[in-house]
């Protein structure tokens, strides 16, 4: 991995389940705007080995569909390492990945989550109109407010 690749975007979801594909759709749209020091990864779900990838970056952004409703259509939050209290390895959250990165590799990248509201999670290809609108708003916010901020770091 080259030295200048310092920001990683994880798009999480499943485009075969309608709005669950929001994380991937975000990556599809944003990829062309990203500087060369950004990388993207598509995930059905986060896995333990993602901690190994995360250790190589200064900034990590986890993008996923969100079932909650927000006025803005999305939620941008800082993400802090936190030990998991779940029984399963099949569903790891971003906080746990960061905790593993810190525990195993002694690295703590700055991290954020971007949750975009979806309304339909049934078996289907393509986003609902609500999710599409929210995706547009999230992309607009990211391009105007976040991208420059991270690039200027």
């Amino acid at each position, binding site marked *: *991995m080259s030295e200048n690749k310092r920001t990683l975007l994880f798009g999480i979801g499943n485009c075969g389940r309608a709005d669950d594909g929001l994380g991937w759709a975000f990556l599809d749209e944003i990829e062309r705007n990203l500087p060369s020091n950004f990388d993207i990864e598509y995930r059905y779900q986060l896995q333990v080995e993602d901690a*190994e990838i995360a250790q190589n970056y200064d900034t990590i952004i986890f993008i996923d569909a969100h079932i909650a409703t927000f006025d803005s259509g999305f939620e941008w939050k800082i993400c802090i390492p936190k030990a998991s209290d779940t029984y399963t390895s099949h569903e790891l959250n971003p906080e746990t990945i960061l905790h593993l990165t810190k*525990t*195993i590799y002694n690295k703590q990248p700055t991290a954020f989550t971007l949750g975009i509201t979806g309304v339909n999670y049934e078996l289907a290809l393509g986003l609902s109109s609500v999710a599409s609108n929210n995706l547009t708003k999230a992309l607009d916010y990211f391009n105007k407010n976040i991208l420059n901020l991270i690039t200027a770091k």
Partner: protein
Amino acid sequence: MTKIVIDPVTRVEGHGKVTVHLDENNQVTDAKFHIVEFRGFERFIQGHPYWEAPVLVQRLCGICPVSHHLAAAKAIDQIVGVDPDDLSVPAQKIRKLLHFGQVFQSHALHFFYLASPDLLFGADSDPLKRNVVGVAMAYPELAKKGILMRKFGQEIIKLTAGKRIHGIATTPGGVHKTITAKERMYFLDEKEIPSVDTMIKWSVEIIDFIKQYHNDNKDFLDTFAVYPSGHLGLVKKDNGFLELYDGVLRATDFEGNTTLNDVPNDDYNEYFYESVEKWTYLKFPYLKHLGKENGWNRVGPLARLNVCEGIETPLAHKEWMEFMASTNGKTNNMTMYTHWARLIEILYSAEMMKELLEDDDLLSNDLIRKGERRKEGIGIIEAPRGTLIHHYEVDDKDRITRCNLIVSTTHNNEPMNQAVKWVANNVLDGKAKITEGMLNQVEVAIRAYDPCLSCATHAMGQMPLNMQLVDHYGNVIEEKIRQ
């Protein structure tokens, strides 16, 4: 009567449910492992063109798609008139490299992420600690190696199939792409990732760990979930050694007597039946000539090491001999030895990946063969979890008209039910209070088989376990649900 139900089973791939029925004196009267998913993959693939099968059926699973991809590919090869021995040598070797990468990453996933919490912390330890995150926090170096071993296998899959999950390596009669010298050097030079030599070294280290663990915990491992069973697996047709990609079917009974004598893949249908029960979606395969009661077999690492006569790579063969010596050469029916057997297969896979990566045949462009069109194809491989059978029939318009899948976890259905019964009878029976640690022992027994319930029922979704304790009136008096 009281019934305990574990629903869903955790740290297995799929959605399972365990019920334990107790009488008024808390004596176990019955115990079952139910699979509560259904998808019907064998049905909806009908009507699709045969060349889509290796791509479609691998969607059964996100953990072992390569196994389904390869088993289907072997079957579809026959549809286009190409038997396994007729594939080009480079195509065979590239497929085998893919397969060993898959076995390596799947076994690493199981041991480090799913099984090691039970072994390192104990089956009755704090469940909040008894998981992969707990392992990573308490044993960071072990966790790091586990992560990198799984990653190595996934990178091999990406090399040969284009991506780590649901990639495409095969085409009817061969493979899509060759390997470049630069691509294979990535796995050999220890620059960007630990090399295949490091994978071999770490595999030996983890086997040393499990052998020490067996020394320290012999009483538990030699007695927990021990029950007689048949054992089934592929072996090499020329010398009976362990074979994972293409061999003949061999089975033995619990004492090692041969019950299936090196049967060619195409003849499997003459020897196997599948029965159904109304309380589970998972079928029960068995050998016809032995009947349903006596004809069921374990499959997977323990069965494979039982039925084979050796391993072709030197380090794994040495470990196999030591493994067999632990039972004085007799057939091993001790469920917990499956973990040790799985690690020997990790070492075998690592040695085979090295041999294949250093083979210049990988660089050849001789990738595809053609033959005379047939109407039927059967592909059998050893998936990480055991013997996997794909059988397709097609019509004159190239459409699939029939599909039969007997997956590894289906073979292990009766063995897993036996494991649940063993724990119910030996751990839960007669106890006034059922503790979380006791219930986890049910899962420990199931988990040794590394079941993939999504594959077995061809279903999708999460794979939790429910466990219920039900009294003699049929009321659920205790329930555990783990997501």
